[in-house]
């Protein structure tokens, strides 16, 4: 496989694995009595497992903890590469937001009129 395709597969799999790991950690941090985390946890673990397997096959690394670390780090590096374009986009959006006028909210206007009539 060419280097570019290897890079693309690694970035895709790594980002998917890292996002699934984040999902697992967030579920851990927000656990509450109404949570049903079994199925989502299994789904996230399956994504991490498949992504690590794909990366280990692509880079000829033995499937295991080292392959998992490599996959997650490559995912994190790929996500960090999103930051500069995202920063440009966010700056443009916030420039627009800074100069916008706050729209009238019909729900709040209704509340005002109802409380005034009581």
């Amino acid at each position, binding site marked *: 496989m060419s280097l570019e395709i290897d890079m693309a597969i690694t970035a895709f799999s790594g*980002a998917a694995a890292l996002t699934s790991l984040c999902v697992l950690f967030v579920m851990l941090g927000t656990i509450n009595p109404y949570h049903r985390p079994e199925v989502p946890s299994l789904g996230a673990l399956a994504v991490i497992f498949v992504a690590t397997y794909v990366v280990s096959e692509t880079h000829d690394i033995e499937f295991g903890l080292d392959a998992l670390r490599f996959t997650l780090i490559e995912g994190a590096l790929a996500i960090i590469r999103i930051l500069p374009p995202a920063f440009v986009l966010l700056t443009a959006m916030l420039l627009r937001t800074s100069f916008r006028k706050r729209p009238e909210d019909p729900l709040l206007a209704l509340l005002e009129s109802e409380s005034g009539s009581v």
Partner: protein
Amino acid sequence: MSPWALQVWLGFALCTIGIGMHRTGPAFSRHRFGAPVAMLGLALMLVHTHEPPEPEVGLVLSMVDSLWVAPAVFGFALVLMGAPLYWKARPATLLAGWPLVAVAWYIAYPSIAGTSLTDFLTALIALLGVALALVVFALCVRTAERMVPPEDETEPLTEREKRYVESVLKRHLGGESDES
């Protein structure tokens, strides 16, 4: 795995858990431990007495190179608080935010200017990976929710509950922040 690599992963776990904790609860009353736990995690990732091994060292160096994100985040937060988005415009907050964004631009400009087409395409492909993981998670949540037997229809709100909901809406969406 070396303890220094473990420290990076422990920091990552704490940082993500802290952000998750911070997002729980209503917008006007966030979890009090969320931000400190996230900051502790970030510190654990970045501060070392010994250089972490490969591949973790690549992530740490890349994060250090991306420290312009800190003024950008604070600047964006101030701009969002000052802009007429959630409540009336607050020009002082808005004016405090934009210089921070400008500082972030000054630091980040070499990275932005040095972004190649390959970097951009890799970032786009990584976004697809993120989207795939989130879609799988959403499908799993839907499956888990569908496994729960449906509950009986709830009673409508009483007059007292209606008044309470109305007061909450007025206090938090009434166009004035709590501080003003």
